[in-house]
């Protein structure tokens, strides 16, 4: 049984937003118009947070892509009265749109703000209707939605493997965001498979002390790992000091 996880290397991230667009297209996320942004109701299963570091003129832009952390002890799960959100055996925090009644308690209890509510009926321009992904449900108004590690891709790969009578191969599946990332900053895979790209990357980064998780102190055991940005100047100064 795989345990899906993700590694996001912030040293490689250039903040291009390709992951956001890829996710949008893959998962039938409604088009975020300017109006929706102004209402602060934009839906982005993976969002790119931009922070400024330092004072002008020495300002640095810092980017951090934030998908759902797929917490092992997800705080959003027990608060749903109708079991619309639950944990799969493969460690993915799933949302069942049909069960959801929209209490939005899961969003209240999610500290990464990665659960999104459909405030309006989703609309696509006619030209885009044919590009909707047939593998993914189009959500109606009034339900929560969130990143699910492109679960339809995982299911498809697992079914294919079953038909072919074999186990899932290492790194056979990847998410849309990881696939679209031009710098390979996002890597997706099985955390329990020592040969997978995520495990190898994590093991290497562990030696460099670069691994951390967002809001780790809450004890929810997120399955998305971040690799710290390597600050070249700071490293150089530290080396000189030695």
């Amino acid at each position, binding site marked *: 049984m795989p345990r899906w996880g993700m590694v996001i290397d912030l040293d490689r991230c250039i903040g291009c937003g390709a992951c956001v667009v890829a996710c949008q297209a893959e998962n039938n996320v409604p088009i975020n118009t300017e109006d929706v942004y102004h209402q602060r109701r934009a839906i982005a299963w993976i969002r790119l947070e931009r922070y400024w570091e330092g004072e002008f003129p020495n300002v640095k832009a810092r980017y951090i892509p934030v998908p759902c952390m797929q917490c092992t002890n997800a705080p959003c799960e027990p*608060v749903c*009265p109708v079991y619309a959100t639950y944990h799969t055996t493969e460690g993915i925090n799933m949302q069942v749109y049909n069960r959801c*009644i929209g209490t939005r308690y899961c969003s209240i209890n999610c500290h990464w703000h990665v659960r999104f509510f459909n405030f309006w009926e989703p609309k696509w321009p006619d030209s885009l209707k044919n590009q909707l992904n047939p593998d993914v449900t189009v959500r109606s108004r009034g339900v929560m939605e969130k990143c699910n590690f492109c679960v339809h891709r995982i299911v498809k790969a697992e079914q294919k493997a079953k038909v072919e009578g074999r186990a899932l191969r290492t790194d056979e599946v990847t998410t849309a965001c990881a696939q679209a990332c031009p710098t390979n900053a996002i890597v997706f895979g099985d955390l329990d498979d020592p040969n997978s790209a995520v495990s190898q990357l994590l093991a290497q980064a562990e030696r460099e002390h670069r691994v951390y998780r967002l809001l780790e102190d809450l004890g929810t055991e997120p399955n998305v790992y971040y690799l710290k940005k390597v600050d070249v100047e700071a490293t150089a100064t530290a080396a000189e000091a030695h």
Partner: protein
Amino acid sequence: MQERHRLGEEEITRELLRPLVTTTPMMWVGFIGLGAVLAIFVFAVSWMFYWGLGVTGLQRPNMWGFMIVNFVFWIGISHAGVMISAILRLTQAEWRRPVTRAAEVMTIFSLMTAMLHPVIHTGRPWRTLYWVFPYDFWRNLWPDVRGPLVWDPSAILTYLTGSTLFLYTTMIPDMALARDRTTGWRKVLYTILALGWRGNERQWKMQTIAGFLLSGLILPVFVSVHSIVSWDFAVSLVPTWHATVFAPYFVIGAIHSGVSAVVTLMALMRWLFRFDHYIRLEHFDAIGRLLIAVGTGWLWFFLLDIFFAIYPQEARELEIMQFRLFQWPFNVLTALIFIFGYFIPVPIWIFQRFRRNVKIMFWTSILVNVGMWAERYWLIKPGLMRKYEWTFDWNWYRPSIVEISIVLGSFALVGFLLLVFSKIFPPISVWEEKEGQHFAQQLQVGKRVVNAIVREF
């Protein structure tokens, strides 16, 4: 011990049943005014159903707003009923008699109004109603009992059932009274509701026992309801919500706002129905004294909540505490809660002269509830606006006109239902008034002979 006028039985019956048959101009004003606001409420809710929650001011991370604040507020008001009728009945406080009925009815109507809020506040209310009430066990998919949103309706529906039964038990003798004095549809209605009440000894005995039993049984519910409502917040991980003090704090806050609402109701009933002989100044005096204790208890928990947020020196709690105590506009709101909830009303209630002034009691009780509404907002919103370190996502909450209409409309709804109730059922318990008259004795106090009850404190 309170002095009271001696009133004849027939006089009591006639005066207390008067609102049923006569409608004063003020009542018409009430019906039309409240009905108009209610129409706006219905329109706002329908508008929201049609377009979806997009028409509210909610966004990420402010997923809960005015409607949830209002829900907590109305649950709070509903605590008046048990406080007045059950606790005061068990402690045999005589001054409860004229207000028990009104307080119980307010409990039921405010509970119903409160229950409406979480339902219309869900993304798909039709599904909430269809799948959840009653729960569709046929699907073999059980509700997740780990979550407070399952405990919450259970507690509230228990409370609603308990208080409806309690109210009905205390209404049976009055229904018989009204049955014997009316004709037409009213006679049919009261005959059904009176359950064949003849007023014989066995019936009285059973009615008394049922009343005491129900008031005893309802007491734990009284503590549990608002505790469980507070767990809607305390069980989550949002900083400043995640506090163990929330349960008792919410309960005492509920009593504070609930008892104040009873004062408002008493004053309104006095003005609307001219029940001067029944809702007397000494009743305001007694409830004012109760309010001093309750208000001070509330202040204690208000300060405890702040203290418990500061004491662990947890950075996130401190940040939100700092935000809601010292930053605009929450600093003004904090001051407002302090002043309206405690510093204006309680010092006023200390003086008997003011406690016996209906106008002053009315306005101070309104002030308390303005303060308590603000307090719920103050408790719930800041934690969401600045939820965790994601400054990128932090956001202000601005309620839309739809939400404001729903909040105002909920007040009109409760008021309207109370008015309709008092047109159909006697708003003051007739038999309890008469019972009070029976308990009164001619007492020699110095040179005067006073008509009073000995056993009350």
